C-alpha cells in the first residue's frame, strides 16, 4: 500500500517538476494576478506587480493563528452564546404555555362565539345587514359570571346608563326561536310600517305617567336583549299609538302564570287588540272586549277575573 502511494507520489512529483520547466512566457502569462473575469489584463508594473490577495491571506493566517491560541476562550464564549440562545428560547416557550394555560383556565372570560355573529342580522326581517357595525347595533355579547347574573337593560336615550331588572327566581332561560318564527310575529305586530312613524312622532309628545321607560321611535320593534328575562307589554292606545309598559315583580309573575296556564287552541284574529305582551320569546295579543289572548293565530279565552287582572296590570280602561 505504502509502495503504491510512493509510486503515485513519485509520478506526480515528476509531472509537477516538468510543469515547473514550462516556458517562461507561458508561466508569466498564466499568472493569476494577470487575469480578471476571464480576461488577460497584463502584468502590473512596479511595486503593484503582486498579488493583492497575499495581504488577505495574511489576515486569514493571522486570524487562524489567533484562533488557535485563544481556542479555549473562543470555545467558552461560543458555549455561553449557545446557552443564552437556548435559555431564551426555553423562556419564550414557557411563557407561551403559561398564556395558553391562563386562556384555558379562564372560563369566565372566554366566550364561545358562533361563526356568524348574531348582530349581522336584523331581528325584524332576518335580512343580513349591509354594513354591520358592532358598536351601533348595541348587541355585544357579554360574559357574566354564573353567580352574578342580572338582567341588564340598556337605556336607549342614555346608552351609558343601565337599568338593572331584578332577578327572576330560578327562571329558565328562554329558548331562542328561529328568525322566521320571530319575523312572522313581528310582521303581524308591526303592521304596514306607516303606523310606526306616526306612532314614534306621537310618542315624543305623549307624557304618560305610567311609562317607566320612554320608547324611542323604534320602540314598537322589540329588542330581544330587553325581553329575554322579563315580560314587556305594549299598550295600543285608542289613537292607534303604542306605549311600552314595563312589567316587573309580582305582576310579571302573574302574567307569566296566566299565559303558562292557558291552552292556545282556537283560531283567532288579532284585529282590534289592546296590547301586546312579550313573554318567553313569543308575543301575545290581548283583546279586552273578547277577553282573548292570541299568539300565532291561536287564542285562549280568559275568565272575567283573569281579564280584570290583565286590564289592571296593563292599565287598560
Amino acid at each position, binding site marked *: 500500500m505504502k509502495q503504491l502511494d510512493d509510486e503515485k507520489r513519485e509520478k*506526480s512529483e515528476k509531472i509537477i517538476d*516538468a510543469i515547473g520547466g514550462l516556458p*517562461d512566457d507561458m*508561466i508569466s502569462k498564466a*499568472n*493569476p*494576478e494577470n*487575469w480578471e473575469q476571464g480576461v488577460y489584463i497584463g502584468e502590473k*508594473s512596479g511595486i503593484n506587480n503582486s498579488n493583492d490577495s497575499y495581504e488577505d491571506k495574511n489576515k486569514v493566517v493571522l486570524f487562524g493563528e489567533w484562533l488557535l491560541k485563544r481556542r479555549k476562550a473562543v470555545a467558552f464564549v461560543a458555549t455561553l452564546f449557545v446557552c443564552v440562545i437556548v435559555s431564551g428560547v426555553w423562556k419564550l416557550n414557557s411563557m407561551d404555555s403559561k398564556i395558553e394555560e391562563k386562556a384555558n383556565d379562564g372560563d369566565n372570560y372566554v366566550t364561545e362565539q358562533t361563526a356568524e355573529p348574531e348582530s349581522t342580522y336584523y331581528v325584524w326581517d332576518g335580512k343580513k345587514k349591509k354594513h354591520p357595525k358592532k358598536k351601533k347595533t348595541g348587541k355585544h355579547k357579554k360574559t357574566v359570571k354564573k353567580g352574578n347574573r342580572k338582567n341588564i337593560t340598556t337605556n336607549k336615550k342614555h346608552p351609558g346608563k343601565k337599568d338593572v331588572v331584578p332577578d327572576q327566581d330560578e327562571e329558565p332561560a328562554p329558548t331562542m326561536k328561529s328568525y322566521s318564527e320571530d319575523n312572522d310575529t313581528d310582521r303581524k305586530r308591526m303592521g304596514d310600517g306607516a303606523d310606526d312613524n306616526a306612532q314614534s312622532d306621537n310618542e315624543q309628545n305623549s307624557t304618560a305617567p305610567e311609562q317607566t321607560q320612554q320608547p324611542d321611535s323604534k320602540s314598537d320593534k322589540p329588542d330581544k336583549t330587553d325581553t329575554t328575562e322579563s315580560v314587556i307589554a305594549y299598550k295600543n292606545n285608542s289613537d292607534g299609538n303604542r306605549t311600552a309598559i314595563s312589567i316587573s315583580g309580582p305582576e310579571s309573575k302573574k302574567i307569566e302564570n296566566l299565559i303558562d296556564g292557558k291552552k292556545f287552541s282556537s283560531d283567532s284574529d288579532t284585529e282590534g287588540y289592546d296590547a301586546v305582551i312579550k313573554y318567553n320569546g313569543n308575543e301575545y295579543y290581548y283583546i279586552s272586549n273578547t277577553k282573548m289572548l292570541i299568539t300565532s293565530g291561536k287564542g285562549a279565552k280568559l275568565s272575567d277575573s283573569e281579564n280584570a287582572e290583565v286590564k289592571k296590570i296593563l292599565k287598560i280602561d
Partner: protein
Amino acid sequence: MRQDDDIQIVNLLFARQESGLKKLEEKYNKYCLTIANRILFDNEDSKECVNDAWLKIWNSIPPNRPENLAGYLAKIVRNLALNCYEKKHAAKRGGGQVEMSYDELSECMAGKGRVDENLEKNELSCIISKFLKQKGEQKRTIFIQRYFYFAEISDIADRMGMKESSVRSALSRMRKELKNYLEQEGIAI
C-alpha cells in the same frame, strides 16, 4: 514599460551591480511572496524562500539572460518553495493545495511501475508544453494556475469568470487528455 524595466534589471545584474537586485526586489517581492505563500502557507517560510530566490538569481544571472524575467523568477521561487515544502512535510503529508495537486496529477501517469529514472525533466516539460500549446488559452491558463501556481479552484474560477464546477471539470478533462497524450508520446511506464 515592463519589458524595459526587466531588461534594465537583467543588465544591472549582468553588470554585477547590487542596485539591480534592489530593483528586482522592489518590483517582484510581493509577486514572489505570493507564489511561495501559495505553496508553503507560512509567512516566515515564504520570506525565507524568497530571500533564497534573490541569492539564486544573483548567482544564475549571469550566465543566464532570461527573456521573461517574471516567468524565470516564478520558476525559481516555485522550485525553492516546493523543496522547502518537501522538507517540512516529509514526515506528514496531507492537506493544502500542493497535496491536492499531487493527488490529481498522479492519475496522469499510466502503468504500475516506478518512474523511469532516465526520463529527463526537460523532455517531459517539452511534451507537456506541446500539449498545452494545443489547448486554448483559457484551458492552458487554468491548468498552469492550478498546477504551477497552486491556486485554489475557487480563486481560479473567480479570476477566470467561471463556475467552480466548470473549472473542476475542465481540469479533469485535461488530466485525462494529458494522460492519453503522454501514452502516445511513449511516456507510459
